[in-house]
């Protein structure tokens, strides 16, 4: 009798386990929408195939204060890329601070016109390596640098826990495909323009695993996939009287350490 009960319990437990696994598989399959991946891949491939392109965008993000309050900061950015190793980024923060970053293929230059100061560092290689060096080595933030680097599709979809196609929407008068994707760290909504030139119109990244779940938002004002008059855009000559200053790299961020972040 005892043995029969044990066998019955084992059978029930096995059936339950199979049921849970089947349910999990179904949930996972339901969260990855092939259409969403296809739309995203078209955009990623389109950007990666472009040898020269540029865009203008308005960025904003939440800075979570020690009190828990979220404060929005932002900047306007104008970016021009010439693969494999040239790039120019002009940005103006909302507090008026301007910065021009130029990758001329051999060196990276930073210039602040109002203060008339500049800094420079060696460019370690193509844009992928150079951006990696700038972000992790020099601790300079490069929002949405993934759009410029190669392998955008793989970077965003590995690992991916969710990819949903939410339908067609209109963003500031432009028809877009609305996607919602997640990885183990963040959720991102993307609005990709409909048609044969799929580019980002808007993106909202929610850092789900971070305290306060801050967001980064970017609204793309324009894209230029065949810019003209780019000659000289990737060169930098320090203006007369400009002072060269150093790039300060703060101590690494740790939970115990104390890089308090920029203040404004």
């Amino acid at each position, binding site marked *: 009798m005892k043995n029969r009960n044990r066998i019955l319990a084992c059978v029930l437990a096995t059936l339950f386990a199979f049921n849970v696994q089947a349910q999990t598989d179904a949930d996972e399959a339901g969260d990855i929408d092939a259409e969403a991946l296809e739309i995203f891949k078209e955009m990623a491939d389109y950007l990666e195939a472009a040898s020269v392109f540029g865009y203008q965008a308005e960025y904003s*993000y*939440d*800075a*979570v*204060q*020690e009190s828990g309050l979220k*404060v929005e900061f932002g900047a306007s950015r104008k970016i021009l890329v010439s693969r494999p190793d040239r790039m120019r980024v002009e940005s103006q*923060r909302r*507090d008026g*601070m301007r*910065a021009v*970053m130029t990758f001329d293929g051999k060196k990276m230059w*930073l210039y*602040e016109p109002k*203060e008339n*100061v500049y*800094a420079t560092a060696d460019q370690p290689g193509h844009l992928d390596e150079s951006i990696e060096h700038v*972000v*992790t080595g020099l*601790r*300079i*933030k490069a*929002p*949405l*640098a*993934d759009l410029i680097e190669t392998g955008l599709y793989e*970077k*965003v979809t590995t690992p991916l826990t969710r990819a949903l196609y939410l339908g067609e929407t209109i963003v500031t008068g432009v028809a877009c495909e609305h996607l919602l994707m997640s*990885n*183990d*760290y*963040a959720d991102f909504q993307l609005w990709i323009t409909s048609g044969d030139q799929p580019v980002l119109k808007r993106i909202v*990244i929610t*850092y789900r*695993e*971070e305290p306060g779940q*801050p*967001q*980064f938002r*970017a609204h793309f004002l324009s894209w230029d996939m065949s810019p003209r008059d780019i000659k000289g855009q990737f060169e930098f000559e320090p203006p007369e009287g400009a*002072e060269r*200053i*150093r*790039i*300060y790299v*703060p*101590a*690494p*961020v*740790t*939970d*115990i*350490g*104390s*890089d*308090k*972040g*920029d*203040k*404004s």
Partner: protein
Amino acid sequence: MRAASTKLMTGLMVASVVCLLAMDFAEARRGGGGGRGHSMSRGGPAASGSFNRSRARPSGGSSMSSRDRSTNRNVNRDMNRATNRDVNRDVKRDTDRQVDQDRLDQRQDNRQDRFDQRQDNIDQRQDFRKDAYDDRKEYYDNRNEWYEDRWRAGAYLSVSSWNRMNCSYTTVRVDSITYYDCNGVRYERVYRGTSVTYIVVN
């Protein structure tokens, strides 16, 4: 009367200047502000605009508090397991078998010995864990102090805060680097990210 008034005015002016300097220096230690209005932190992972944790937190570290919790959880889990195992075993033995009193007493003695031995082991493990925890805590305290020292040395002012100080600074040029001496504090103008800032270097 007039002399007293003059002294009072002078005292107030000196106090105001000292107060302003203290405020500016405090701001420098906090990490700077930008023009008018409250100082707010601009940092955080969302500023990275990155899809992945590695870029949003390029040099993330380990958390001591989570380690502590883990250590405590392990200790509790071990103790609970040991206790539950003993209780279950006792119940099973007492209900399933009939034994004579001598054997029962003997087993109880043995059990007590084993229990005492296990308790000693648990205590010993706890001592080891406590020692390890103390060592780690000391290590992190030291690291913490080191980071605080570095932070104090790396305190900075935004350009607008620097301008607002309206400091009659002097400059010293060493190895093509210009240092700015203001109110007894030495600064260097540097790029911090893409922003020009004045960091404290002494």
